[in-house]
């Protein structure tokens, strides 16, 4: 029972399945069938409820949404929206993580740095990005910078807090061991603190990615003429509920796919830094 198994086998069944098609085709399990049945059932229910009780403008059914989606795909409109939103999300997410991870590491390791930044981190993480829309537009204009900044802002606090928690969770014995094996404080930071915190940073990034998808709608409320957030926000004016639904479905699907991809990358290239479930 306590035999040593390769790490991959310790993962929950299906943990890698999403991106390993040979496995998926090779053994479609009961679990997968339930997933599919659940999704098909929900779409049928959606159809029945929409057809029976509501006008299409109020609550469009799946067929109408699909038809509109086809039009939007044919005109290239949909992929344009998806492309620009994805670009804003990823840029903001990467910049935010790149700022927050080092700052979080420093805050976790050096008390003075923590004392300087902690009040702001603890204060502003309660202020939603939506509250900043007007000042950000005033200061940075209505271009891409403002939209990306909004996403940077959301990403930062999640990665920052997770990184600090990670540093606080390092077993003191690891740092002691490094010290008695001859590591200077800087080397100990580089070779112990950083890798030991990496699982927490990656988890923070994964959570932040989710929030970035949620925030893109707010970001694209800033004078945008493209993007899924714009699609959702603008369709409101025309009562184009079907287009709003398309925006919603795309956000969810994109979020899911990006999350799976991120998880796949971590498991594939950084699994020694701990599973981030």
């Amino acid at each position, binding site marked *: 029972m306590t035999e040593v198994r390769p790490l991959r086998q310790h993962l929950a069944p299906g943990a890698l399945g999403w991106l390993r098609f040979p496995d998926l085709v090779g053994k479609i399990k009961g679990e997968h069938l339930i997933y599919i049945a659940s999704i098909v059932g929900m779409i049928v229910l959606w159809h029945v409820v929409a057809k029976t009780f509501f006008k299409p403008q109020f609550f469009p059914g799946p067929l109408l949404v699909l038809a509109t989606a086809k039009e939007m795909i044919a005109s290239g409109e949909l992929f344009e929206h998806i492309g620009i939103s994805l670009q804003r999300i990823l840029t903001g997410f990467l910049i935010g993580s790149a700022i927050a991870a080092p700052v979080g590491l420093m805050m976790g390791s050096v008390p003075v740095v923590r004392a300087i930044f902690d009040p702001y981190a603890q204060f502003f993480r309660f202020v939603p990005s939506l509250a900043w829309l007007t000042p950000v537009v005033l200061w940075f204009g209505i271009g891409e910078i403002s939209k990306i900044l909004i996403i940077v802002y959301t990403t930062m606090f999640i990665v920052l807090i997770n990184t600090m928690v990670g540093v606080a969770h390092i077993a003191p014995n690891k740092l002691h061991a490094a010290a008695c094996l001859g590591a200077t404080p800087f080397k100990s930071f580089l070779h112990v603190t950083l*890798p030991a915190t990496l699982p927490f940073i990656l988890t923070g990034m994964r959570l932040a990615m989710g929030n970035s998808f949620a925030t893109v709608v707010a970001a694209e409320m800033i004078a945008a003429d493209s993007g899924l957030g714009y699609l959702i926000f603008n369709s409101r004016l025309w009562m184009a509920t079907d287009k709003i639904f398309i925006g919603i479905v795309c956000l969810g699907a994109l979020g899911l796919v990006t999350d799976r991809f991120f998880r796949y990358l971590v498991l594939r290239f950084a699994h020694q830094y701990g599973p981030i479930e």
Partner: protein
Amino acid sequence: MSAEFLVACDVSYQYPTRRGIQSLPVLSCLNLGLVEGEFFCLLGPSGCGKTTVLNLMAGFLRPTAGALTLSGRPIERPGADRTVVFQGDDSLFTWLRTIDNVAFGLRMRGVPKNKRHAIAREYLHLVHLDGQESKYPGELSGGMKQRVQIARVLATDPKILLMDEPFGALDAQTRGRLQDELVEIWRKTGKTIVFITHDIAEAVLLADRVGVMTRGPGAQVGAIVPVELPRPRRRGSPGFGEMWEHINTIIESEQADVS
């Protein structure tokens, strides 16, 4: 005292005062002298300050009063001449393969990769972990993890090994095997070992000398009992039981003093 190697002279330790609450001293006026190359066991009940002594020797803590010296030089900070084998397995670097855990100290010293891996392999061989180089600590059993710790400290070629109940969390069989192997490693490498335990039998099995710690607060090393049983020792060897009884009597009489 010229032969003495690691010396603790009138060492006291007290945790820093917090929120105006004065803590009791953990150790007061502790004296101890170790001889180079000996296997020394520090024996005492839980909470008596054994680990504090080890932390002072390692340089993780500084004494509140008194001084510790190694070969005449004061111990002020952690150093690769005094490496520690910790009680649990949380000191292993889980993101490094076994071989890189063992080579960590050499890497800190700037030894090139090929050379440090070659040295690490030698020490993995010494602790019977051949073929486990590329596993991560999470894939090893408890006993194997402690072997990695032992190989890791030996690879830096320290003057002294500080071991804090290293086999405490292992099952009896694994523990017995590792005890035998440790004596073998000690014999081969000639290192000085300070081994902390609360198990009298373990101390009798391993040590050249056993230092019995008195009860805290203000603990000291009380009696020092030389164990002159021939090696290799077995729990059933002649004299083993008598030695066990002798040390147990010392511990009990001391507890009687307190109560």
